[in-house]
């Protein structure tokens, strides 16, 4: 501890111990604890106590807890725990009889202060820090703390309850480490007393009839198996697994969610050789015993496991797919499924039956070329335990249950699909069919063929939640391949959703996203065109719908319509068929009008869309019919107008992004007079109040620099390796345009920007420039001269916060000299620190706390 802090510490301790002094706030105490923890970790706690006796004095008032505020009391408990984590210090505190009085019966435990959850939490955290050595275990055993921890597991505060569980795991782990020299005893009966006590408690809880108790025990075990991978955990599992298995025999299975968590954490534990522990059997049994909504997460967890028997994986996958199987079965003869009464779909139905039949028809369904819909799940993915009538029962009791289960299933499958360990072969076609069917049920266009289907239809009609989940899932399914017939159906249903006036704005957004994904994944035809004819046809059908969406009274609909437009133009703007269809529609004109939308998000999206349309040459200035004489502004002017006048940040940021892109792509309007363009943009951007606009301005400046000076040799634009030096004369010549567009004025101003990211970006830019001009400045040598001096003076004023005066005209030489003289690396280092690094020192913390308490304030008060 540095001396200044040592000096302040007694005063602070006095403040903390004084019940009349209010404590500033919890964060101060947290920071103080962090600080003590770092000191304790770095050296001896005992020494710390001896050097600062005030700390011991501070811990004493705990003996009269009623005088202290709960948060200070909690702080002291945690501080004592941190200090006592070292055995010598623990002994020292023990001698003073301090620890029993803090953590034992005599302490706050059971007193009035105990009613505050912070105090209980502090007590647990203190014990948790303290329990690091065998002496601590003895202390726990004697003080009876373990029983208190047991009772705290059921605490009304969730934080306390969860911390109590973690503390138990911690204690168990430590007590098992003690005899760790040899192999763990195979009999828990031979384990240390403390461990036995905890294990006994867990056993008792597992046998309990009350679900909360079972949940507590399962949660403790889950924490243990996920954090502790010592060999003894295997012994423990073997010992406890019969009790866990007993839970499965109850109906309903108690604490199912916690049970699933436990089984998965056991399965993931590296020390447990699962096969020998009968874990796989337990998992299989659990899968078949739990309700569909509870089994879903377990099935997903099993499928995510790296190593797992095939049969179990198949069973898990079948459980996961059950709700979708049920949906498919309920709509077997849905319209729009041509040939749906044919054998292809019959397979889909049969797939819910015994394995044999699903295998029998899967072979046929696997071949998309035979004209039948391969709607069977792949062989082996559907186990014998899958029981569709049961699922139908699960789906149908209430709308909420049905919607919840379907959303969960879709989300799980969406999570599973991108993983390498997903079941193989992945049943693209049936999944696709299921997603389409669900969407059809939601918009009422599916015709159910059974009672189940009729009920499903009634539950799902118009359900926005399921629509969103299904569209998300449909989007993910675009990664794979499906038979052409199904793809046609996908595009058909997407078009239905995009056209329907009943699609809610969020559903519409998802539909646009899914559409984009499907369009992007549709295979390129060998002929050379960009889009396969099928998707092209779809886009042509979609384009007449888009204008209606762009006119929607809901801003989010207009916004997602524009985003979709931007993406499609970016992707297919060069494709003749698409260009033709787009130009024939009203879309470009409407987009232009949306630049003046009242909603700023829409304006921003319109700016992006217009930028993209213009880049692709799809923006045609209409001969304005209403005002034949009026001069139509060019898009560049229009965007500059937005940049300088729009009251919201989003459209201005969008403009800057478009401009940067235009500069990169050498857009025709920009290339005509690049310097003029850059000068105008930078002038407006430098005055913007939004830091993102200024930062984007620097990005644009950097692009301009790169285009003028050449790319840096390495791929990273900010790389510090000096590039091949340019000839000095060229450099001087090259810097002239930067001076003309006042790029330096902008960059230096940004260097002292009050927003750190802007300053950082400017710093990087100037470093890049300095590296580029290194050879030039070497030759020039001196960094003196009138220009340089005045420039440096101006910069100093700027740094001090006075940015009123412009730099005026600059000479390249002066700039180079200043670049050399500025400590850019130092500045970059300072900026890389977090913004509050100066205020984070322990000294300032102590000062702050004392100031709030008014101790230091007295002297300062005289100054006023």
């Amino acid at each position: 501890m540095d001396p200044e802090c040592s000096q302040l510490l007694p005063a602070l301790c006095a403040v903390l111990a004084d019940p009349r002094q209010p404590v500033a706030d919890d964060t101060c105490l947290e920071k103080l604890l962090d600080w003590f923890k770092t000191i304790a970790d770095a050296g001896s706690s005992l020494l710390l106590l001896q050097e600062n006796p005030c700390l011991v004095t501070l811990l004493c008032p705990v003996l009269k807890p009623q005088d202290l505020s709960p948060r200070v009391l909690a702080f002291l408990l945690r501080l004592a725990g941190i200090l006592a984590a070292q055995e010598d210090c623990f002994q020292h505190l023990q001698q003073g009889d301090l620890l029993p009085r803090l953590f034992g019966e005599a302490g706050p435990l059971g007193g009035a202060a105990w009613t505050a959850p912070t105090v209980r939490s502090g007590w647990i955290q203190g014990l948790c820090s303290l329990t690091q050595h065998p002496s601590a275990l003895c202390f726990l055993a004697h003080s009876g703390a373990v029983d208190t921890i047991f009772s705290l597991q059921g605490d009304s505060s969730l934080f306390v309850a969860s911390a109590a569980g973690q503390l138990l795991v911690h204690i168990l782990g430590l007590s098992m480490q003690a005899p760790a020299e040899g192999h763990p005893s195979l009999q828990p009966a031979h384990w240390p007393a403390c461990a036995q006590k905890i294990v006994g408690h867990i056993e008792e809880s597992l046998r309990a009839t009350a679900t909360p108790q079972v949940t507590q025990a399962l949660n403790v075990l889950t924490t243990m198996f996920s954090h502790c991978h010592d060999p003894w955990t295997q012994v423990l599992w073997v010992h406890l697994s019969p009790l866990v298995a007993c839970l499965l025999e109850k109906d309903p299975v108690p604490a199912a969610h916690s049970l699933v968590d436990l089984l998965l954490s056991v399965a993931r534990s590296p020390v447990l050789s699962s096969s020998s522990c009968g874990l796989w059997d337990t998992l299989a049994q659990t899968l078949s015993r739990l309700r569909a909504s509870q089994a879903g997460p377990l099935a997903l967890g099993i499928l995510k496991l790296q190593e797992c028997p095939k049969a179990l994986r198949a069973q898990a996958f079948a459980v996961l797919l059950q709700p979708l199987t049920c949906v498919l079965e309920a709509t077997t003869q849905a319209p729009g499924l041509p040939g749906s009464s044919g054998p292809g779909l019959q397979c889909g139905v049969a797939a819910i039956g015994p394995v044999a039949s699903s295998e029998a028809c899967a072979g046929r369904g696997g071949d998309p070329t035979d004209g039948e819909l391969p709607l069977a799940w792949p062989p082996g993915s559907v186990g014998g335990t899958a029981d569709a009538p049961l699922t139908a029962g699960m789906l149908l009791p209430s709308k909420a249950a049905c919607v919840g289960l379907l959303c969960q299933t879709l989300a799980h499958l969406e999570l599973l699909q991108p993983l390498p360990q997903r079941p193989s072969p992945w049943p693209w076609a049936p999944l696709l069919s299921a997603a389409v069917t669900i969407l059809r049920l939601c918009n009422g266009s599916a015709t159910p063929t059974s009672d189940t289907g009729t009920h499903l239809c009634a539950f799902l009609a118009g359900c926005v939640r399921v629509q969103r989940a299904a569209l998300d899932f449909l989007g993910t399914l675009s990664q794979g391949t499906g038979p052409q017939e199904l793809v046609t159906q996908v595009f058909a249903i997407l078009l239905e959703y995009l056209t329907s006036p009943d699609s809610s704005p969020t559903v519409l957004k998802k539909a646009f996203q899914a559409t984009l994904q499907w369009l992007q994944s549709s295979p390129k035809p060998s002929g050379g065109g960009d889009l396969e004819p099928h998707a092209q046809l779809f886009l042509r059908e979609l384009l007449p719908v888009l204008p209606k969406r762009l006119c929607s009274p809901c801003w989010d609909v207009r916004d997602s319509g524009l985003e979709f437009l931007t993406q499609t133009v970016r992707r297919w703007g060069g494709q003749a068929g698409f260009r033709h269809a787009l130009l024939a529609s009203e879309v470009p004109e409407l987009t232009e009008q949306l630049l003046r939308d009242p909603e700023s998000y829409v304006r921003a999206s319109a700016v992006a869309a217009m930028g993209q349309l213009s880049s692709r040459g799809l923006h045609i200035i209409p001969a304005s019919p209403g005002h034949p004489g009026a001069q139509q502004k060019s898009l560049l002017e229009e965007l500059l107008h937005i940049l300088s006048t729009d009251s919201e940040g989003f459209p201005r940021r969008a403009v800057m992004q478009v401009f940067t892109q235009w500069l990169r792509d050498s857009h025709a309007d920009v290339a005509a007079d690049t310097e003029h363009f850059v000068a105008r943009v930078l002038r407006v951007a430098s005055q913007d109040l939004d830091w993102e606009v200024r930062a984007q301005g620097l990005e644009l400046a950097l692009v301009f620099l790169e285009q003028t000076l050449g790319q840096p040799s390495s791929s990273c634009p900010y790389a510090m390796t000096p590039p091949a030096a340019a000839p000095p004369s060229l450099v001087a010549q090259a810097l002239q345009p930067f001076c003309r567009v006042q790029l330096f004025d902008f960059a230096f101003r940004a260097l002292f920007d009050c927003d750190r990211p802007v300053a950082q970006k400017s710093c990087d830019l100037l470093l890049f420039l300095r590296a580029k001009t290194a050879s030039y400045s070497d030759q020039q040598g001196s960094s003196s001269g009138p220009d340089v001096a005045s420039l440096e003076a101006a910069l100093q004023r700027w740094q001090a916060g006075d940015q009123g005066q412009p730099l005026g005209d600059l000479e390249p030489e002066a700039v180079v000299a200043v670049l050399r003289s500025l400590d850019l690396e130092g500045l970059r280092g300072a900026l890389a620190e977090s913004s509050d690094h100066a205020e984070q020192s322990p000294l300032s913390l102590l000062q702050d706390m004392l100031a709030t308490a008014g101790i230091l304030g007295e002297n300062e008060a005289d100054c006023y």
Partner: protein
Amino acid sequence: MKLYCLSGHPTLPCNVLKFKSTTIMLDCGLDMTSTLNFLPLPLVQSPRLSNLPGWSLKDGNAFLDKTELIDLSTVDVILISNYHCMMALPYITEHTGFTGTVYATEPTVQIGRLLMEELVNFIERVPKAQSASLWKNKDIQRLLPSPLKDAVEVSTWRRCYTMQEVNSALSKIQLVGYSQKIELFGAVQVTPLSSGYALGSSNWIIQSHYEKVSYVSGSSLLTTHPQPMDQASLKNSDVLVLTGLTQIPTANPDGMVGEFCSNLALTVRNGGNVLVPCYPSGVIYDLLECLYQYIDSAGLSNIPFYFISPVANSSLEFSQIFAEWLCHNKQTKVYLPEPPFPHAELIQTNKLKHYPSLHGDFSSDFRQPCVVFTGHPSLRFGDVVHFMELWGKSSLNTVIFTEPDFSYLEALAPYQPLAMKCIYCPIDTRLNFIQVSKLLKEVQPLHVVCPEQYTQPPPAQSHRMDLMIDCQPPAMSYRRAEVLALPFKRRYEKIEIMPELADSLVPMEIKPGISLATVSAVLHTKDNKHVLQPPPRPAQPAGGKKRKRGSDDIPDCKVLKPLLSGSIPVEQFVQALEKHGFSDIKVEDTAKGHIVLLQEAETLIQIEEDSTHIICDNDEMLRVRLRDLVLKFLQKF
């Protein structure tokens, strides 16, 4: 209690409820879909329409959908739930011998008057030179082209009423306010409740002391301009009659309004005109409000909106003065210097202009492209006919149907071939089936009665089981010309006791919380109210003659035997018997109680829940002794 169902149209109901001694007509909607069988009535002679092959101009435009199920002159009162459901009122009040009273809220009457006025005006301004009715003869009708020859009940089709009949009908209306309790002949009480569908629209509660019937017709849970629906007061109904649900259950009004705005903007941007056939009140207020918020964002600020109706001005102004009937946030605007509806601002800024008809000012102000709101939604009469003729040939123009009452394809039939775009965005804010099921769950009526259309999915979407009423017990359905016996019996009647009589009662507690008293009184019934009055004092026995006359007048109130209550505990009873010297007692349990056998005395005491019999062999002394023993265990009063 009976319900006579006079209309088969679920949103234009007309039912008669016989409840206690009253006959109450619930709504009298006018089904005008039969006008679709006629040619449009053009304002200007249209050579195209009159030259259509196979069609000929016919008379008659408005039709009453009624049967001779019940003598309408016996109807005591008519309860109106909203202005759309009163359009047949003149036919009933003026032509059936009706002598009762009509109850409706003020906005209902005022706006209903506007609708009728508009209808009469539309019809009367294009008078017919001749009228024909012979074709209604079934033999001739058979020979007519389809669909006329298939039209049913043409004999019930009527000529449109006159303004005079309207005025006379409206004069029979008595105005009521929400939650106002109206006594009908002392027998039942009726109360209108806000239904949230239109200005002044109401549901009705018809209740006696022990029965409650709710009549829900045209209600809405959406937040539009009217006061929100009062659901709480519908609780504890014995019967809930449910009519007037949305006609387009698959269309969500919000989505449709969006669709309306988008299509309107697209058309106008392309230089086309938009025609909105509509009623002069109702959804148009909400549409104008949406457009008010939308036109600036869509860059339509300089597009004129025209509202053409003989009652346009009154409709727009009436809406602003019915503050107490509006939703809360519009009500609060009344206290600011702001009109509740933003259409006032549209009018001030000249964005919305209204005209009584095409003639006059409109023709000089008319500027295209524009948006025109005008009637009638059937496209058979009114100014809309002219605009259809005017704009129908250009594909730039669009007609947007927002009223759900008429099939838009049938409405358009006489205008084919049509180049203009047709958009169907029916906006119906009435309850949909999801809202109904929530409402029923909340209100929990014992029985639900509804038109049969609501008990099965719509014919076009027979798999949509969600588009029907699903409740327990299943709803009772009715169809036109059916008489329904409502499924509950009246079991109680309230009788008042005069204070002095009540004073004389001495209740006796027979078990905790339950006290009984006998009462002798005269039941006096007048105006469906029943009162128990103290019996007249028996005349003093002054003389034989007088006494005789007295006994003639006064009901015979001789002293009654006391009533007994309580039960006999068998074990104690046996002990008591033993105490009194009976021996050889046997007790047998039976299904209903016990039998105590006194073998020695050859006597049987049968104790059941509500009777005790002592069977002994002609030993009266023994019987009396036993009876007194039994009585000791019972209370008398």
